């Protein structure tokens, strides 16, 4: 039994009678006789509010003036009818009449009349929910999503496009780019200028004071500086470009010391040119200039164009000269081909282009045997090894002619 609570009634209205007798507003109320179920209303003043409770009415005597208050009028009486049987079921049952073995549905327990005041919990009207199904749009999107091309495009193409687009738009502003670069530089500078990376001392080993000063002058940055700012390779290249420096090793030691170990070139020979006198090392590389020959009187002297390129041969000649050394004033490169050994007393040994040392040895042997070099000549020509030639001085030539003519007169 479904219990319906009476609707809210404003004071002064009787819902029963109001519904039974629709009246016009302002009309005088006429109350012919009280309801038999409400004996106490018979003489009640009209202004007094009448509130009906469902418990006021004994079952079966409830006034039923309009339908909504009594929804299940025949529910108690007519339970045998199938209230749940739908129309089409009945039609179906007629279409297919079936043997009905059971006269009625099995009813194991008679339904008791519920006491009216035991108001059951308000029942929710069960709206049959539709079965879940994807909407047309969801279905189409789902099918679209199952296309491989769409999947790849969405999963890879669109994110990449968005990222590129966003970055491009964001970096399109030059100020923002500059700000980023500036920030980067700032961070980089802060890291590079940590105390651990600072170089504050330059230590040079194995360099003469002039070279030392030159190296210090070449330093790319003013110390103290960050070790990131010092390009050691370039610095070393600059140092080795100094003529006096043969090699240099640059190491940044912990503690902020830049250590440069310099190997200087050893001057072994002097080279007189039109411009002045240069000191050369054993390979012929220039070391430094000297103002005059006397500054390094201990070094032998060479001269002539291209003489620096033949320094090793000159050195071997000087070494082979041995006893001749005190007499040698220097070596002169002739025609960038061969050497002349210039002796004192205006004498000159003209050495061949090849095997100059052998030619010199031969001269020394001749000298030892016949005291050749003590003779009065100006040039000793050894260029043709088969025929060494001697050019006498004018005085000696005159003497020689005198002697030879005398000899020719005495002979016949």
């Amino acid at each position, binding site marked *: 039994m479904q219990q319906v609570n009476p609707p809210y009634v404003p004071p002064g209205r009787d819902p029963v009678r109001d519904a039974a007798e629709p009246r016009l507003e302002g009309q005088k109320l006429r109350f012919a006789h009280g309801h038999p179920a409400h004996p106490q209303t018979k003489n009640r003043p009209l202004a007094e509010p009448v509130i009906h409770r469902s418990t006021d009415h004994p079952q079966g005597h409830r006034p039923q003036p309009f339908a909504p208050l009594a929804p299940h009028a025949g529910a108690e009486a007519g339970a045998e009818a199938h209230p749940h049987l739908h129309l089409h079921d009945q039609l179906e049952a007629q279409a297919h009449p079936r043997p009905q073995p059971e006269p009625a549905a099995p009813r194991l327990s008679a*339904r008791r009349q519920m006491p009216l005041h035991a108001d059951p919990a308000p029942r929710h009207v069960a709206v049959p929910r539709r079965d879940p199904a994807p909407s047309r749009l969801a279905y189409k999107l789902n099918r679209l999503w199952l296309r491989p091309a769409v999947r790849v495009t969405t999963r890879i193409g669109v994110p990449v496009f968005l990222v590129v687009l966003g970055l491009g738009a964001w970096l399109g502003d030059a100020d923002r780019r500059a700000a980023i670069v500036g920030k980067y530089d700032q961070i980089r500078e802060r890291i590079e200028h940590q105390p651990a990376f600072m170089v504050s001392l330059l230590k040079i080993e194995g360099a003469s004071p002039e070279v030392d000063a030159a190296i210090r002058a070449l330093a790319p940055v003013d110390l103290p500086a960050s070790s990131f700012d010092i390009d050691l390779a370039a610095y070393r290249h600059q140092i080795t470009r100094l003529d006096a420096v043969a090699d240099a090793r640059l190491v940044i030691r912990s503690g902020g010391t830049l250590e440069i170990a310099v190997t200087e070139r050893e001057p072994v020979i002097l080279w007189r040119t039109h411009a002045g006198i240069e000191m050369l090392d054993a390979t012929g590389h220039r070391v430094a200039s000297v103002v005059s020959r006397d500054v390094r009187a201990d070094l032998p002297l060479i001269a002539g164009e291209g003489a620096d390129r033949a320094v090793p041969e000159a050195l071997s000649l000087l070494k082979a000269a041995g006893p001749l050394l005190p007499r040698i004033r220097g070596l002169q490169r002739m025609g960038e081909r061969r050497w002349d050994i210039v002796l004192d007393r205006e004498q000159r040994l003209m050495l061949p282009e090849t095997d100059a040392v052998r030619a010199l040895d031969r001269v020394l042997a001749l000298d030892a045997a016949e005291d050749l070099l003590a003779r009065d000549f100006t040039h000793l020509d050894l260029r043709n090894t088969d025929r060494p030639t001697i050019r006498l001085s004018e005085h000696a030539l005159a003497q020689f002619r005198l002697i030879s003519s005398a000899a020719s007169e005495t002979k016949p």
Partner: protein
Amino acid sequence: MSDLYETQRAMRNMRKAAMQRGVIALLDVGSSKIACLVLRFDAPQDIGEPESGGPLAGQAAVRVIGAATTRSRGVRFGEIDAMAETERAIRTAVQAAQKMAQTRVDHVIACFSGAQPRSYGLAGEVEIGGEQVTELDVGRVLAACDMPDIGQGREVLHAQPVNFALDHRTGLSDPRGHSGRRLATDMHMLTVDAAAIHNLAYCIRRCDLELAGIASAAYVSGISSLVEDEQELGSACIDMGGGATGVSIFMKKHMIFADAVRLGGDHVTRDIAAGLQVPMAVAERIKTFHGGVHATGMDDREMIELSGNSGDWEKDRRQVSRTELIGIMRPRVEEILEDVRALLDAAGFEHLPSQQIVLTGGASQIPGLDGLAARVLGQNVRLGRPLRVQGLPQAATGAGFASVVGLALFAAQPQDEWWDFEVPQDRLGGRSFKRAIRWFRDNW
């Protein structure tokens, strides 16, 4: 008729396209559930010239890669009743199957059980004049069958050549290559309500799918539930669905009769709901868990709790014995079986050499049904389950999935139908332009 021929050929072309694509969906639009399988053809072979069988045979390498089932709504008696609801149900099933298969399916083969199928046996013969029978002759003899009056608003669903006879020899399954003078054929034609087909086609088109074939549920559950010798020697498959019970009779591996009773498991459920005054869902549950058709003394003591949401405590807490439940179910099941019996009698089933009866479909799972069916239908009754298809989920191997599994077999190894053969030119109702196009396509 020419229109129908073109429609069916279009569906065949669609199926070829689906096979080349590799996946096809199978849809069983039933009254109680809608099942969808996604089928993958593993080795797409050359569809053009198979060694034997029809033009589409030899596609056996199939695998089920997606399966889904949903509660049917909007389908009654195996026909579409509420289009929008059916469309939603088809969408649900197809989407779930696609999700499982992880692929998109565009072509679908559907089957349904209702729409008042009617069987016709046709016969035709043609003179071939002592030459070898060619495929064109087969088409000619099929086209020579005299069309019965199938009535207004009916559509041909199947038209399968069942038997060929050449001169005095009959029982040929494939007459091509034989020599003879007179070729005759017997054709089985199944017609259904045209409106049902159109509704189904419309629903499927609304789901963005292409219809690549339609089959009768009775036929496809027959090819999935009957074993080969049963199909050969003669048997009947009774597909007890929710809203309709399909009957198909097979002989010599061909369906020779199909019909449907417009009664099914849903009527049993309704009887229970009405008799016990419980909601349909509760009735379905009670039927599934406690149903039966043979009451024993034990069943008197087995009490079943009923439930409900009427709000009446006493009503919602009733108990019934299983005997009472069986007492409600059995008359309806008997009625269904008796209607089936009437159909079988009308079809002349008793003249078949073997009279095996196979019960399948969701409603055939009532315990004890085979015993009851044996008393109504005859002694050779067994319960059938569908054949196994590779990849079929365990949940879809029950008797209720006989028709959708049959659809898989139907898609893999389709039977030759009338529209698989070329119709002779003069029958084609020809506009000359169309014929010119055809000539170009054939020769270039």
